[in-house]
C-alpha cells in the first residue's frame, strides 16, 4: 500500500513541475497532497490525514485554482523556458536534494528509540488527547504556539479587511 501511494506521490509531483498549464499543475499538486494524506491514514493517524485533506485539498488548492481563475484565466499556456533558467533550477534542486539526503541519513529519528508507528493503527491518537495537548500549558503542551497562531490569523483577517474595505 505504501508503494502505491509513494509511486502516486512521485509521479504526480513530477507531473506538477513538468506540465505547462498552471491549472493542471494545481490539479497534480492536489494528487500529491491527497497521497500524503493517504500516508497519514496508513500510519493510523486519521486526525492528521483529515487535516491534510481539509487544509490542503479543500483550502489551499481551492485558493490556488480560484486565484488562477481570477487572474490569468486561459491565457497561461506558454511561458518560455530558457536553458539558463533550467540549469539554475537543476543546480538549486540538486543542492536541495543533497541537503535533504544528508539530514535524513544523519538524523537520529525518534522512531528508532520509541519503536515507531505501525501500519496496523494499534495506538490511535484520540481527538480528546490532541485537544488536551493543544490547550495545556505544562510540559509538552502547545498553548503558546496555539495562541501565537491565533494572533497571526487575527492579524491576517485585519489585514485582509484593510485591503478590501471601501474607501
Amino acid at each position, binding site marked *: 500500500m505504501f508503494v502505491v501511494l509513494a509511486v502516486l506521490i512521485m509521479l504526480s509531483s513530477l507531473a506538477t513541475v513538468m506540465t505547462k*498549464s498552471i*491549472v*493542471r499543475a494545481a*490539479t497534480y499538486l*492536489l494528487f500529491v497532497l*491527497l497521497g500524503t494524506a493517504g500516508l497519514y491514514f496508513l500510519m493510523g493517524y*486519521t*486526525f492528521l*490525514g*483529515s*487535516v491534510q*485533506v*481539509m487544509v490542503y*485539498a*479543500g*483550502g489551499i*488548492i*481551492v485558493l490556488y*485554482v*480560484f486565484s*488562477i*481563475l*481570477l487572474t490569468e*484565466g*486561459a491565457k497561461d499556456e506558454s511561458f518560455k523556458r530558457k536553458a539558463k533558467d533550467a540549469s539554475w533550477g537543476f543546480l538549486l534542486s540538486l543542492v536541495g536534494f543533497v541537503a535533504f539526503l544528508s539530514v535524513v541519513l544523519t538524523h537520529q529519528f525518534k522512531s528508532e528509540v520509541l519503536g515507531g508507528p505501525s501500519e496496523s493503527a494499534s495506538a*490511535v*491518537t*484520540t*481527538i480528546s488527547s490532541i485537544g488536551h495537548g493543544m490547550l495545556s500549558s505544562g510540559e509538552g503542551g502547545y498553548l503558546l504556539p496555539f495562541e501565537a497562531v491565533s494572533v497571526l490569523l487575527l492579524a491576517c483577517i485585519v489585514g485582509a479587511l484593510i485591503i478590501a474595505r471601501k474607501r
Partner: protein
Amino acid sequence: MFDFSIITNWLHDFLMGTCGFAEWGAILTESVLVALAIITLYAVFAIALIYMERKVCAAFQCRLGPMRVGKWGLLQVFSDVFKMLTKEIISMRQSDLFLHNLAPFLVVTASMVTFSCLPWNMGAHIIDFNVGVFFFLAISSIGVVGILLAGWSSNNKYSLIGAMRSGAQIISYELSIGMTMLAMICLTGTMSFSEICQDQYVNGWNIVRGHVPAVIAFLIYLVAGNAECNRGPFDLPECESELTAGYHTEYSGMHFGYYYLAEYLNLFICAGMASTIFLGGWAPLHIYGLEGFNGVMDLVPGAVWFLGKTFFVVFLLMWLRWTFPRLRIDQILSLEWKYLIPFSMVNLVLMALCVAMGWHF
C-alpha cells in the same frame, strides 16, 4: 436492537474458516463486497431521489409529474438513466480535455466517500474513524475542486461564472456547517459517527437533549446544507435563466450524469448527516418512562429508522427548494457572512454553556 455486526462477523468467519482465505484475502474480498454495495446503493438512491424530486416538485406546482412511463411514471427515471448511458460523450476542441474528463470523477468520488460515512444501522458503519465528523467535512471539500476545474476546463464563460459562484458559495457555507456540527459535537463529546449514534440510542436524540441550541443548530444546518448542495433558493451556480446550466453546461452523456448523480446524492448525504447528528441516526424513538413503547420501537430495524428520518429531511429540503424563489449572489453571501456565521458562533457558545452547566437532558 438488531446489530448488523453479527452479519459482518459471520461473513468474516465464513471467508476465513469455510473458504480458507488468508486474513488479507478475506479483508480484500470484504472491501470489494462493501464497495459494490455502496455503488449499488448510490445508484438506487439516486433513482429514488430523482423520482421523489419530480413528484414533490409536481405536487407543489399542482401538477401530476411523470405519469406516462409505467404505473405512476415509475419507470420514467429508469428510462432516463438508459438515455443518459447511451448518449455520446462529446469532446471539444479548445478545451483542456484531461481536466474536463477528470472533474466529474473528482465530484462523484468525494460524494461517494462522504456517502460511505453515513451510519446505516447499529454495527453497519463503513468508514468510522475516531475523527469521523472532521473527516466527513474534509472529504466533502474536495468536490469544490472538481466543480472549479469543470468550469475552467469547459472554456466557456458561463461555466466559469457558474463554477466561481459555486466555489464561493460552498466555501462560505462550509463554515456554518462546521460551526453547527461543532456545537453538536460539544454536546455528544465524540466525533465518531458510531459513538454519536450509540450515545443518542442511550440518552435520547440530540435535538431533544440539546433543546434550544440544538434546534437553532438544526435550522442553521438545514439552510447551510441546502446551499452546500447548490440547491433550493441557492442554485445560483446553475441558474438557467442567466448561465444556461452553470458549470456543467458543456458536459454530455454520462459525464453530465455524474454531476446529476452527485447533486442528488449530496442532498441525501446532507439529509443523512442531519438525521445522524440531530435526529439520532439509526437510534429509534424512545420516550422516557414508556418501557413498552420503547420495546416496540426497538423491534424496528435501525436502517428503517435511518432511512425514514433521512427521507423526512430530504422532503423538508425539497419543500424549501420548490417554495422559495432564487436569491442573488450578493444576497447569498451576505446571508452567510452577516447572519448565519454570527448566529452559529453565538449558538456554539450557548451550547458550550449548556454542556458546562449541565442544562441539557
